[in-house]
């Protein structure tokens, strides 16, 4: 798999889909398909696929408690244990996972190693990936939450508040959301490092570029709709409310760009369960992170533990009895 192929294949697929949806919505009257049928379908695929994946992971047992310990163990009273990096109780584990999920704790440790003259191997602290990753995910999350304003009437205060906050700087009309700017910067960073850092480029698959392109399209079409080629938001909300109340009704003339946006969102959620994006679920099920480091104080049970062939003491003594006796090592049978 060459770099060109890895990046071009998803690019062409996305481009094709873009033209497809633009063409179809502009020249036919299949808005129903794109506005109602596909969203429901995508949602169904997402829910079922997500559940299926989680269940199939959960079906495999955790035979051993293989915590990756990143801090001082709890041992003697007078040695201060690091309960976040070496969790001892379930509560500690929850805290560790929370730190991992909300703040990307492990990524924060990242270093970048350089071999200099000397030789000197220097391990620089490298926080850019952490920053870009965290910015992308949090922006994504906030943007998602903001979208709930289309699905609720009246809009709950919390959502209004987030919207306000995100709009704090009131740059331009309509104002540029802070998270929109951040997510563009962050995802550009993630994309550029994938393309420019040779190591990352080398390991990247089409499946790594595809979600990035998809997200670019979603974000791009979304911002385009808001700032340049405006669509009728009242009608969008009408559609959203009708969809969520399971009485779908399609208002006329929302604008083709909206369908592009919606289609790519549907694509993302339908693709989600079958892709690496499932790291959303996987991080909670990762045995190195979601288990306590209390192995010696609390026995872990392996459900498929089975008897194995061992070399027993009796067999051992039978073999070595004479030698042991000659050396005056105690034996069980004289």
């Amino acid at each position, binding site marked *: 798999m060459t770099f060109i192929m890895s990046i071009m294949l998803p690019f062409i697929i996305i481009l094709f889909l873009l033209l497809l949806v633009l063409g179809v919505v502009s020249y036919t009257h299949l808005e129903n398909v794109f506005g109602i049928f596909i969203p429901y379908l995508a949602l169904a695929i997402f829910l079922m696929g997500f559940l299926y994946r989680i269940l199939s992971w959960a079906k495999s047992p955790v035979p051993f408690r293989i915590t990756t310990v*990143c801090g001082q163990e709890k041992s003697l009273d007078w040695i201060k244990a690091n309960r976040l*990096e070496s969790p001892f109780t379930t509560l500690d584990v929850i805290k560790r996972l929370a730190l991992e999920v909300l703040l990307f704790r492990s990524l924060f440790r990242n270093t970048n190693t350089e071999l200099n003259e000397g030789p000197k191997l220097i391990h620089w602290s490298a926080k850019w990936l952490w920053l870009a990753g965290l910015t992308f995910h949090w922006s994504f999350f906030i943007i998602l939450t903001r979208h709930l304003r289309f699905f609720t009437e009246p809009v709950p205060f919390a959502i209004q508040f987030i919207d306000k906050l995100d709009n704090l700087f009131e740059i331009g009309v309509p104002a540029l959301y802070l998270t929109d700017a951040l997510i563009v910067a962050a995802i550009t960073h993630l994309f550029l490092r994938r393309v420019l850092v*040779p190591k990352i480029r080398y390991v990247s698959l089409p499946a790594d570029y595809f979600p990035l392109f998809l997200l670019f399209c979603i974000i791009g079409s979304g911002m385009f709709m808001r700032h340049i080629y405006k669509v009728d938001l009242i009608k969008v909300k009408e559609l959203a409310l009708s969809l969520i109340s399971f009485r779908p009704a399609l208002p006329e003339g929302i604008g083709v760009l909206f369908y592009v946006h919606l289609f790519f969102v549907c694509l993302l959620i339908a693709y989600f369960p079958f892709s690496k994006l499932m790291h959303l679920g996987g991080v909670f099920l990762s045995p190195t992170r979601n288990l306590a480091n209390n192995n010696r104080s609390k026995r872990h049970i392996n459900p498929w533990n089975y008897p194995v*062939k061992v070399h027993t*003491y009796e067999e051992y003594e039978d073999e070595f009895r004479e030698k042991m006796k000659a050396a005056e090592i105690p034996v069980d049978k004289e």
Partner: protein
Amino acid sequence: MSELDGVPKPEELLKIDYQPPRKGWMDTPVNFKPGTYNYPAASKNHKILELPFPREWSPMEEDWKLPENWKEIVVNGIAERLSKYRSFKVFMDICVRCGACADKCHFFLGSGDPKNMPVLRAELLRSIYRKEFTAAGKVLGKLAGGRELTPTVIKEWFYYFYQCTECRRCSVFCPYGIDTAEITMIGRELLYLLGLGINWALEPAAKCFMTGNHLGVYPHTLKDTLEFFADDIEDITGVRVEIPLNKKGADILFVTPSGDYFADPGTFTCMGYLILFHELGLNYTWSTYASEGGNFGLFTSHEMIKRLNAKIYAEAKRLGVKWILGGECGHMWRVIHQYMDTMNGPADFLQEPVSPITGTKFENAKSTKMVHIMEFTADLIKHNKLKLDPSRNDKLKVTFHDSCNPARAMGIFEEPRYVIRNVCKEFYDMPENTIKEKTFCCAGGAGLGNDENMEMRLRGGLPRGNAVKYVQEKHGVNRLACMCAIDRATLVPLCDYWAPGVQVTGIHEMVANALVLKGEKERETDLRGEPLKELEE
């Protein structure tokens, strides 16, 4: 320095190119270069352990004499393990190829070979998983990151799963905790299904199975060896220590890796244990049957871990001890801490460990009932139970290597440091990104510590060696302390190569040097028989 014969000079090794090749990794076949791979396991060892398809074969030959239905065996083997290990299943699915782990592996840093990036090491297997077990992979093949399972893939696995020391450093940095060591372990199991193993791991396993220890030391030889240490100790300290062996009714069973009583400098640490236990008047025993704490099963298969580990509890039960004390070892402690109780427990025939000297209850070991000697000794020092004269270690300027397994499987960081600080005056930690949970491997663990693989070991040893050199230049460090038997063997050539002048020591060697014994004579030499003070030039 015979071990280093035939290895290129450091200047040569340092010409490392971190730039990946133009050609994609799937199209780059593996190249077995002498000095960078391990010899296959002799068929006799397969036979002793009753493993499938014993045969003589060579990685350098085209034909590996794979069993006829090898493909089916591998695919079924993967399927079985996907259903048994959530770790494996989740790790196959969720990697985002963010590359955070890429430059965390010592083998990548020392070789520049992109397939030594943990993410690619895992992809070697993941690509087969995709092709055989995911819909997209089945239909789209390469486009979905899948690839055909061919004998070339098996060769690649053999090469790269034995260029991983299962150190788990990558797992510390991965945002989802993906543990490439876990994937390596499964990968090695799959290779064993085809009768492919390495001798440096399987021979010790076979010997351990039969004689109780990796080195195949017979019971009477073990006794002779320990008696011989007692003679040396008497010469140096004037005190005769006893050697309790297979003693029924002892309170404590002591288990340590056989490396400790087999070769320098581990032997000095072994003498250290004997001296300490004597001074405490501990009612303990060694066992000739459980004469191995280490477990090369860990480098073979999960089943083999259990088969070799079973001796420890069985022997504790037979001898009727109260609890078990474990010596200075690395991978042994991964097994004791994370596998033993689950595999061979519950140890309900033992008692919750209590130090007979201080009365301290080792609550953290109340189920497994096995205490790490560093926990034990740190507790003794804290309670002022040892009379220590650190000035006897004055010629030492010490740094400490956190062995991968006690670090990332247990988190035992402060206990050894506390002990070291109490037995010597000058202690300097290496840079922060190279110690504790971020410690760099000795590059000779997991069965790779053999001579035929020396170039790869030294390459992988670069990050550790470089950090040692740093404190050597900055603080004049001349001793690298560690609490691992594999380290005591592998760090020696590593230091000779990357930080010449630094010697390797176990911690209880230093403890015993500092320990003032009742009735001892004036000490003139340390346990190595060398003068206590550096002779002034």
